[in-house]
């Protein structure tokens, strides 16, 4: 037993409490930092060998624990690029040098180049969807690139498929051959006509005129023309023959399309793609011509107006005409022991030996949490906890300082034995 030893023990106690105060200070400082995970201190005793009758005081060792897996509260925002993870998983971000990190801080804003940057200055990584579904390597971050929401070119999508459904009046007059729309002569007779907007390769609007004419009982001819070829003032004769013409056969038992009947049109859109229009919803009952469904895909060239994330991590570009196109998919990464990740400045974590290897996945798949848009995860620091810890640490520090002081007093007594 030595007085020096006791004083050292007091110093180690003070140092431990100082560490604790330091952790509390950090937590309190980051009480409003998005995605911050609190740390806490754990102590372990350091005991020296003691013999009977003599005690060697040891000390205390400080271990800092991170509470990375503890979920923070969601705070809802009005920005569509604010993201939060509810459950397991981290966003993959990278610094300017390209080093990947994991983070829960999802308050992303686009920078001047269109990259999504969070408050720590890290850019969000995702899989590009330009070439179809991403090839995800489960244990590696290969294939990721910074998510960029700007688009340099206007994009048009040619029409490739459509659907049209209407009722044809079963009591319509039968039109004899020779004056059918498919004959494309002056005075071609038709029962009903609708037009649909399709888009060619360059995004020009092509209006398709679709004519329906009864040719025999339960048989209807459907012919599609390009409206641009129409005679002056509209109608027949068109400058070119029909783009496609089919004869639909209806089942007299129920008014639906017969099983043997063609059920679609394949239209070669001028300067565009082959457009398949599904006509299987057509009916023929004793009612007026009524259109029930009409839709053709494709869009005119349009600039990106904004972006939005869906909860499965897909980033959609929203075009000015309202169309959406998936451009990136943001993955989530997880490790075996998230609490042992190496915390680095900027709310990011680096993968280390203790944490285990990284596993890639998508939100709400394979144990990953869900992605919440227009929200950020608040820090999981609780002020009340920290304040109580602080008081405890303060008292602990005071007690340790008393030990030190007592040791010092004893030494003084010892020194004063000799005059």
């Amino acid at each position, binding site marked *: 037993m030595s007085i020096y030893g006791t004083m050292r023990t007091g110093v180690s106690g003070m140092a431990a409490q100082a560490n604790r105060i330091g952790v509390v200070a950090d937590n309190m400082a980051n009480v409003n930092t998005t995605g911050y995970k609190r740390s806490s201190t754990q102590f372990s005793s350091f005991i020296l060998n003691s013999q009977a009758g003599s005690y060697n005081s040891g000390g205390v060792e400080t271990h800092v624990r991170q509470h990375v897996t503890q979920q923070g509260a*969601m705070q*809802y925002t009005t920005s569509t690029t604010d993201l939060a993870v509810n459950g397991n998983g981290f966003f993959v971000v990278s610094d300017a040098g390209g080093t990947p990190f994991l983070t829960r801080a999802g308050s992303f804003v686009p920078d001047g180049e269109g990259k999504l940057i969070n408050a720590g200055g890290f850019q969000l990584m995702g899989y590009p969807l330009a070439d179809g579904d991403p090839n995800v390597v489960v244990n590696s971050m290969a294939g990721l690139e910074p998510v960029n929401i700007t688009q340099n070119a206007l994009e048009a999508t040619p029409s490739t498929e459509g659907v049209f459904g209407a009722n044809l009046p079963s009591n319509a007059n039968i039109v004899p051959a020779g004056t059918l729309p498919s004959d494309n002569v002056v005075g071609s007779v038709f029962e009903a006509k609708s*037009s649909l*907007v399709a888009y060619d390769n360059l995004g020009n609007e092509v209006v398709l*005129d679709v004519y329906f004419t009864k040719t025999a009982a339960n048989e209807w001819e459907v012919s599609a023309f390009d409206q641009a070829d129409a005679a002056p003032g509209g109608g027949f004769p068109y400058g070119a023959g029909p783009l496609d013409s089919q004869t639909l056969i209806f089942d007299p038992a129920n008014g639906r399309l017969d099983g043997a009947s063609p059920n679609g049109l394949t239209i070669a859109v001028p300067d565009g793609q082959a457009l398949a229009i599904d006509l299987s919803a057509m009916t023929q009952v004793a009612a007026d011509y009524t259109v*029930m469904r009409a839709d053709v895909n494709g869009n005119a060239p349009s600039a990106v107006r904004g972006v939005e994330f869906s909860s499965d991590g897909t980033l959609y570009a929203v075009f000015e005409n*309202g169309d959406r196109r998936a451009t990136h998919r943001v993955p989530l990464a997880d490790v075996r022991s998230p609490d042992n990740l190496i915390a680095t400045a900027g709310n990011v974590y680096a993968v280390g030996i203790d944490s285990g290897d990284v596993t890639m996945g998508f939100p709400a798949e394979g144990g990953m949490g869900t992605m919440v848009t227009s929200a950020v995860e608040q820090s999981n620091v*609780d002020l009340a906890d920290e*304040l109580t810890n602080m008081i405890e640490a303060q008292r602990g520090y005071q007690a340790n300082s008393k030990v030190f002081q007592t040791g010092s007093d004893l030494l003084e007594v010892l020194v004063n034995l000799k005059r």
Partner: protein
Amino acid sequence: MNLSVALSSAQSALSATSTQSSIISRNISGAADPGYSRKMGLTSSMGLGGVKVVSVGRTADTALHARMLEANSGASAQQALLQGFETLARTVDDPQLNQSVSASLGRLTDALQMQAESPGDPVLGAATLSTAYDLTRTLNNAAQTAQGARAEADAAMADSVDRINGLLTRFENTNRAIVLGTQSGTDVSDELDTRDRILTELSQEVGISTITRAGNDMVIYTDSGVTLFEKSARVISFNRTFAYDAGTTGAAVFADGVPLTGAGASMGIKSGALHGHATLRDEVAPQYQLQLDEIARGLVHAFGEPAPGGAPGIFIDPGPAGPGLAARIGVSPDVDPALGGDLGRLRDGVTVNFNPAGDAAFSDRIYAMLEALEVPQGFDPATGINPNTTLSRFASSSVSWLEAGRQQASQEASFRDTMLERTRESLSNVTGVNLDEELALMMELERSYGASARIISTVDTMLQSLLAATR
């Protein structure tokens, strides 16, 4: 759950409540607007940390709205038709003035009968001539009014087409904003109201039906199925005809290359002001014109010499032959002393001299004319009036036809108006703002706001006491 979470929950509750309050204030300000539908803030609690207004909902009843559009189209079609009938009725109106063709014909008969008593009296002869002129003028004026009504209807159709094109352009913009807003999840409830308002205005002009597609995209068809709007507005075209006579056929209105009006329209519209005006221009007014023409033809025929239908008599068709005789018919200059004619020819015959002896009391020809008026003639059945009848009966039937048409249009119009009112009322009951409800909700929100604020102050007090412990 810790104190920080409690704070952030309360904070989110405050922001949700304030969003809801702003929605209520929108509802209250829109309470008097018939096109406004009630909005609701739809809240959702998500995971840790409170509540959020996820989207703004809007009360709507698409079936009822479609009924309202239909009633609106029907009412405005009848209104337009009634307006046309009233213009035509000006030709027969005012029984005191006796301006109708039928009354003029009666006066001519009276004058002839008077003259038959003393055929040689030049004063009575002049009176007969004046009534004959009166009759031709009445017919000319009536024909002019009928054609004027057609020209007016034509102008109204042109206005209607302009309005439809304008409305479709506005619709295109609003629809685009709605599709965009729906895709990006913003609040489009006000735009939806605007879109419904445009549809209401559009239904006044033409009967429509709509389909809503993915992304709140709407397609408009006429009630006959012609595409008016699908991604982009279709062109509605119409060539105005400025001057009308009986032989003129007005141009048809084309939408998407398909005629909406006129005889050749296989997909003709069935309601809306455009339909009302077109019916008047292409059916009612031409039929009335045909009746007037038949009266004029009957007059020329009845007064023909020596037998009815022979050589021209008092009334002549100056030509050229063709429809629209009512506008052309005149009095033979041979009987008008002012034009170098001789009043005595009224008594003796215009082309053929029935009184070669020059007998001053010769009244056979006048009686023959009076008799010819009472002989049933074969009129054109296309007039819609009993074709085998006398001229005077035919003329009065024409008046009845017009009055009956007007009355029917008026009754139908008031019925349609009532129906429209009822539908509007039901729609307003479903989608409109109920002030009591809003105020009750407002008080509820006030309480909830207070409670959330209290949580914040309580947490504050708790932290305060903790801080006080740190000295």
